Structure formats: structure tokens, C-alpha cells
């Protein structure tokens, strides 16, 4: 980003766009400071950056309209940007000032070294000056050795030749060194060197008098510049240096107070409040729309819309911030699984290595909790059915120790978790035979099934290939439960397998449950939301484009066939008259369906709530959300609906029977 702004500055300078160049220059300074860690990304700074962003378009607009409108605002923002960098300069001095470091030394530090110096101070490290002499002939190697040695005890911030040495065959370096250790323990570590601790000045010059004044008026000045729209940031943000000082004085307090444990319900509550705010926001924009129609209200409406925009942006940031707090690494559940694997491999006397990657991948706390059981089940399954007995592995020439890989990674708005084993794989023929024996499929169906569909049979309720169920898996509770659990979280499970080489189960989950973007559509005159994450594209739809392929309605989309389903039929509601229907294309895993809806009404962020127990069994509906006007809109379960479309006739009937037990 820094580079981009830099380029922009260069270009605008080239074309004589002085305002843009000026803005870019200030913006570049702030970004540079951020980049080098000289200032923190506080909400204050963020606001300023956003303001600067808005300013670009304003300058362009003013140029286009050939007016000088907004000149004051432009200057205001420039001023705030400049102040941020100045403030930083003051802050830097304040931080380093209490230490007895020669100004001469500070002057020659590179930007990075200066940054590291500050970082060390902030982390509460002690500072040392180390004087060490090297023979010129072996300078390179000795310095490397010294560096290695030093690395164990702390960090070398900078080294400079002292020049005080008179021997032409040696060179003396002064090394600025940050370390948590006391001077007594550093001395013996560097026997060839002289170590001095950099002391803090005794007369606690907490703030150089000079830096006090500008710092105090800077935030106030900035708030004034930001105009009446913004509220004043809380006092804690206004005086960041006070906090810094507190940290410096007592580093141990800092480490304790950096994290808080919060009940997830409190976060849910926060999320609900944000949801309510979102409702207020929508109502606000509706009001503005109504006001816009009246000419005498044009001016206040414009202001209201600007307010609304700013409100919306901050609300979005707030949502993101809360969502981020809810995120926890998957490692939490993976660690538990590692214990399970050890225990089960002992019980089954199979040697297994669990290889975990991506444990740091983050996902909503609620999802992590719900994942524990399904993952445990999948791992048991891999151990029990996948990995062969030791003798068998030896016989087929595999390593005696089997491997189960647990991989997690983020993919767009989804988290993918794979459970992969290097066992015997799934024998599709045996699978089919079992399914026939259990009456899950009939002979006709078997003939028309693809390998993918056959493998999918393992997710059927009541399915098992093993005649003797073990204690661990295959006793009633099967992979169908896993599939249902994952589906409840809005995810899908897929299976791939090579006979003889292994099986891979893949779970794809949304990162968070709480707030989702939905596409509002009308079906049977009723409003529904489709999770935008599942929507690929929306097209106009005419009946004439339909073709019947193998008994299913399809259209041809960019050369490929797309299965089409009329949403009202699927949802079993009466269609409403429509002039022009739309086709919403939804992809789940490798399946794609185009759903015909009567109308498209745009998109909205909603807080999704689950339906009550009494409606849990209704398939195809993921939950409901409240819109701005207190209407409740049902959110469709895109994943479930796509699967239904692809389900065989027989399955559909069975599923219906299960969902409506009257």
C-alpha cells in the first residue's frame, strides 16, 4: 500500500496535481510510520486514513466540477495526517529519552534500528552497551561468532565502530544490545567484551517539556478537524503515551493484562446488539430515501446520508472486530484429537502418526466446539477402517506406522479441514454390495451411480461395511451423524478415496456463523435470504432456455450444463406472478444448481438466528433474521437445498417422510 501511495505521489507530481501530490505525501509519511512500526494502528489513525481515502475522490470531484469546494476539509485532513507523523516523532523521543544514550549515537541509527530500540524498550528489555574488540584479520568470522552468542541472550540493536581504538590491527565496536537478563549474567557470556548497562536517567524526565504541548493539543485539534460527525475517542486513546509509560515502568503488569477471558455468551450478546444497530441503520437509510423525495429536505437529507455512510462504515468495522474476537485457532480441538489418536491406536494395536498442519487456522469459537465430535468420529473411522493392521501393512509394502494427516487451511470465507489416512482406501464394489444388502439402494440405481455417488453412500444412515462392529466405530452412530453435525454448522463433507492408498474426508465450513451476507429473493411472493457466500452469480431467466437432459431441467451456461430447479417447487409453495424471473447460481462443493426465483431484491447483512426446536426438522431452512422493518426473513440452507436437488428420487421421498412426521 505504501508503494502504491508512493507511486501515486510521483505520478500526481508529474502531472502537476498539487493537491493529490500533497495528500499522497502526507499519507505516505503516515503509512511509512505504520510500516516501520513507529506508530500503532489506532482507531484514530484508521479514521484519518479513511478520511484521506475519501478525500481523494473529493479532490477529483472538485477538479472535475472545477470548484474549490471542500478546500477547508482537504487542508484539515492534511493537517491531521501531518500531526500523526509529528506526534510519532514526539512519541519516539519520549520513549527513548529516559535512557542515557548519547544523542550522537541516536542520530546515526537507521530507521529500522531505531524501531528495534523502541520495541525493546516497550517490551521491557534492559539495554546494554557492549564494547568488544576484534582482530581485523578474523573480523568477519569473529563477528559472526559473537552474533550467534549474543542471539542467545537478547537482540543486537545496532553496532558501530567506536573509533577510540588506537591499535591499527584491531577494531572496537560499540554494540547496543537489548536483553531480559541482568548484567551479572551477561558478563560471563561475553568474556572478551566490556558490558555496561544503559541506565535510565535518575531525575525521571518523564516528559520532555517540549513534547507535552503539541501532544496535548494534537488529538483535540484532530477531533475538531473531523467535524461534528465523529464522536470524541475515549480518553485512553487520547493519551497513548501515558499507557506507554505505565508499561515501561512495570513490564510484568503488561503481560498479565494483555488477555481477558470472556464468556462466549457475552460476545453473542454484543453481536446481537450490533445486529440491532444494523436494523437501526437500515431504518435510517429508508427514512433518508423517503426524505429525499421532498425538495425542501434535500440539504438535510444529504447530510443524513453522509452520516449514514459513516455510521455504516464504523458498524462494519465493529462487526469485524467482534467477529475477530470470536475467532480461535483450530489447534484447540486438534490437541484433543492427538490424545484420542494415541489412545485408540493403543487399543487397536496399530501404530499411527498424526500429522497436523494448519492448527493456527482460526474459526468461530462456536464452530470449534461443535467440531470436536465429528472430527473425533472421522479420526476413529480412519484408524479403525482406514489404517490396516500392522501385518497387512507389511504385506503390501507400506511403512508399519500408518499416517493420519489432519490439515486445516482457509479458503476465502471458508475453512477447510481434511482428515487423510494412508490406509486401504474404500473398496467401491464392497461398498456397493453392502448398500445393496442393507437395502439403501436397488440394483437399477447401482448401475447408474458414479464413483462419487458410491463413495457418498458411507454417509447414509445405518451404513456399515464391517460385519463386526468394534467398540470404536461402526456401532450405529455412523458418518451420517458426522454429516448432519457438519451440515448444522453450514458445512459439507466430501470423500475421496483410492483403493489401496488411502481415504480423504474433507470438511468445508464457513468461518463464522453469526453475521452473514444474504441475497434477498422473492419466492411465492415471500421474502427469503440466500447466503451470499454460496451464490456464484445471478442471471436473468427465461423458460425458453430450458432443456431437458436425462429427466432434469438444465440450461446451458457458458458451454456447460447447469441443473435448474424452481425454488417454489422445492419449497412447496405457490408461485406468484412474475414478469421476469432470475436464476441464482449456487455452488456447493462440486455441485452447481441454478434456482429460479421470482424477484431479486438486493443484498443485506443479517444476524442469523436459529429457529426453535419445533422447526429444527424442517429441511432447507438454515434460520431466520430480522430486517430493518422488523420483518422476519427466513434464510435458506443453500447447501441442503443443492443436495436435495441432487438426491435421488427415493432419497427425496425418505427425507420428506423424516421431516414431516405427522
Amino acid at each position: 500500500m505504501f508503494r502504491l501511495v508512493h507511486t501515486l505521489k510521483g505520478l500526481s507530481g508529474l502531472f502537476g496535481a498539487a493537491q493529490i501530490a500533497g495528500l499522497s505525501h502526507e499519507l505516505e509519511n503516515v503509512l511509512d510510520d505504520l510500516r516501520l512500526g513507529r506508530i500503532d494502528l489506532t482507531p484514530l489513525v484508521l479514521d484519518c486514513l479513511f478520511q484521506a481515502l475519501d478525500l481523494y475522490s473529493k479532490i477529483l470531484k472538485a477538479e472535475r466540477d472545477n470548484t474549490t469546494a471542500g478546500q477547508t476539509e482537504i487542508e484539515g485532513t492534511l493537517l491531521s495526517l501531518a500531526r500523526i507523523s509529528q506526534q510519532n516523532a514526539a512519541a519516539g523521543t519520549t520513549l527513548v529519552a529516559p535512557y542515557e544514550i548519547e544523542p550522537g549515537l541516536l542520530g546515526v541509527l537507521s530507521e529500522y534500528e531505531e524501531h528495534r530500540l523502541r520495541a525493546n524498550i516497550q517490551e521491557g528489555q534492559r539495554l546494554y552497551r557492549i564494547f568488544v574488540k576484534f582482530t581485523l584479520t578474523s573480523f568477519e568470522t569473529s563477528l559472526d561468532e559473537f552474533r550467534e552468542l549474543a542471539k542467545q541472550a537478547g537482540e543486537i540493536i545496532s553496532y558501530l565502530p567506536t573509533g577510540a581504538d588506537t591499535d591499527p590491527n584491531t577494531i572496537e565496536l560499540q554494540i547496543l544490545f537489548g536483553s531480559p537478563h541482568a548484567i551479572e549474567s551477561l558478563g560471563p557470556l561475553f568474556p572478551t567484551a566490556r558490558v555496561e548497562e544503559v541506565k535510565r536517567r535518575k531525575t525521571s524526565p518523564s516528559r520532555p517539556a517540549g513534547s507535552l504541548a503539541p501532544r496535548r493539543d494534537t488529538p483535540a485539534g484532530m477531533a475538531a478537524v473531523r467535524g461534528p460527525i465523529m464522536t470524541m475517542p475515549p480518553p485512553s486513546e487520547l493519551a497513548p503515551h501515558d499507557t506507554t509509560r505505565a508499561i515501561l515502568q512495570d513490564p510484568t503488569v503488561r503481560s498479565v493484562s494483555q488477555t481477558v477471558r470472556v464468556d462466549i455468551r457475552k460476545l453473542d450478546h454484543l453481536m446481537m446488539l450490533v445486529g440491532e444497530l444494523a436494523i437501526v441503520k437500515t431504518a435510517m437509510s429508508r427514512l433518508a430515501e423517503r426524505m429525499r423525495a421532498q425538495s425542501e429536505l434535500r440539504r438535510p437529507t444529504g447530510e443524513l446520508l453522509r452520516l449514514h455512510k459513516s455510521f455504516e462504515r464504523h458498524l462494519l468495522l465493529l462487526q469485524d472486530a467482534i467477529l475477530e474476537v470470536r475467532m480461535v485457532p483450530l489447534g484447540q480441538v486438534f490437541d484433543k484429537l492427538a490424545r484420542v489418536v494415541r489412545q485408540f491406536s493403543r487399543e487397536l494395536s496399530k501404530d499411527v502418526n498424526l500429522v497436523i498442519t494448519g492448527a493456527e487456522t482460526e474459526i468461530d469459537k462456536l464452530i470449534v466446539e461443535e467440531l470436536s465430535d465429528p472430527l473425533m468420529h472421522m479420526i476413529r473411522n480412519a484408524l479403525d477402517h482406514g489404517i490396516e493392521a500392522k501385518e497387512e501393512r507389511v504385506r503390501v509394502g507400506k511403512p508399519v506406522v500408518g499416517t493420519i494427516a489432519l490439515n486445516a487451511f482457509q479458503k476465502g470465507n471458508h475453512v477447510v479441514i481434511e482428515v487423510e489416512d494412508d490406509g486401504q482406501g474404500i473398496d467401491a464394489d464392497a461398498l456397493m454390495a453392502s448398500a445393496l444388502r442393507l437395502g439403501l439402494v436397488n440394483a437399477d440405481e447401482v448401475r447408474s451411480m458414479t464413483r462419487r455417488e458410491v463413495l457418498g453412500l458411507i454417509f447414509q444412515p445405518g451404513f456399515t461395511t464391517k460385519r463386526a462392529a468394534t467398540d470404536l466405530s461402526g456401532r450405529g452412530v455412523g458418518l451420517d451423524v458426522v454429516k448432519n453435525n457438519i451440515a448444522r454448522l453450514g458445512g459439507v463433507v466430501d470423500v475421496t478415496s483410492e483403493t489401496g492408498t488411502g481415504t480423504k474426508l474433507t470438511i468445508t465450513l464457513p468461518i463464522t456463523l453469526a453475521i452473514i451476507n444474504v441475497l434477498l429473493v422473492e419466492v411465492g411472493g415471500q421474502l427469503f435470504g440466500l447466503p451470499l457466500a454460496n451464490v456464484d452469480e445471478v442471471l436473468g431467466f427465461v423458460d425458453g432456455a430450458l432443456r431437458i437432459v436425462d429427466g432434469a431441467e438444465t440450461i446451458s451456461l457458458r458451454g456447460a450444463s447447469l441443473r435448474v430447479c424452481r425454488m417454489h417447487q422445492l419449497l412447496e409453495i405457490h408461485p406468484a406472478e412474475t414478469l421476469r424471473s432470475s436464476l441464482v447460481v449456487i455452488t456447493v462443493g462440486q455441485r452447481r444448481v441454478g434456482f429460479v426465483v421470482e424477484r431479486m431484491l438486493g443484498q443485506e447483512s443479517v444476524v442469523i438466528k436459529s429457529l426453535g426446536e419445533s422447526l429444527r426438522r424442517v429441511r432447507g431452512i438454515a434460520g431466520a433474521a430480522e430486517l430493518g422493518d422488523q420483518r422476519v426473513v427466513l434464510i435458506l440452507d443453500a447447501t441442503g437445498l443443492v443436495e436435495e436437488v441432487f438426491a435421488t428420487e427415493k432419497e427425496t421421498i425418505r427425507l420428506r417422510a423424516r421431516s414431516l412426521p405427522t
Partner: protein
Amino acid sequence: MTQLLAPLDHAHDHAHSEAREVLGFVIEGSAYGVDIPTIAEILRLLEVTPVPRAPSFILGVLSVRGRLVTIVSTRELLRIPPAASLTRQRVLLINVGKETLGFVVDEVLQVFRVLREEVEPPEVLTDDPAPHALGIARTGSETLILLDLARLLDDRW
């Protein structure tokens, strides 16, 4: 949104300790009663969002101060055919198992204080009463069929 409960019928106050408070309501001209402690709240019937594929006795969902409540038709649960143009409908929120359900009734009467001796067992009407029928209360001018609304759903799941 909450409608205040009608004032108590004080006629029998303090006379008997074994009185129960019952909310009287009407469906298709008949008066029914539910025990007050089972009722969480009484609401006006606002626009309910229908849920496709749901059992027919479920009318839909309604947001009550941000909480989703499933609304059921008490008529249908009592196997009374639907009626057109009812204007005084109310929703009784009642906890059933783990969730709160809203039972729609034609009209709410008032709170009755019913004495123990005023209640007859349901067997006076039929040999094999349904589990949701608690008895018949004769109080003053009104005869109420006492219901356990939660049990109306017993055979519906």
C-alpha cells in the same frame, strides 16, 4: 406490545387458599382456560413469517424483541377448522420443552380465580379424555375447559 392482564376477579380473595388463576380465552365461541403461571407473555398477533415445509399447525415465526418464536395455531391443534376475519386474536407465549411457543387464540377474556371445588375432572365429558384436557371449571357465569397447551403438541411431533 404486551397486553396487561385483566384485573383479578377478587370475589373469592383469601377465602380459599386452594384457588388457581386461569386465563380465559375463546376459540370458535367456546371458552377455555390455561393456568396463568404457564404463560410467559401475551402478545397481539403481528405479521407472522410462514415457514415452508413446516407442519400445518405451525403458522410461522415472529420476532419478539429480537428472539424468534414459533407461532402455532391453537385452532388446528384442537382440530377446529380455520376461521376468516378474526380481529381480536392474541398470542399466548408458553414454554414447551426447551423453547417458547406462541399459541394463537381467537380472543382473550380475563383472568379467573378458580377454586378447587369448582373444577370437575375431564372424565365428566368423555371416557377417554385427551392428555391436554385438565378439567372443566365453572366459575361464576363462565364455564372454562382447562387446557395444558404444551401437551396439545404431544402427538404432533
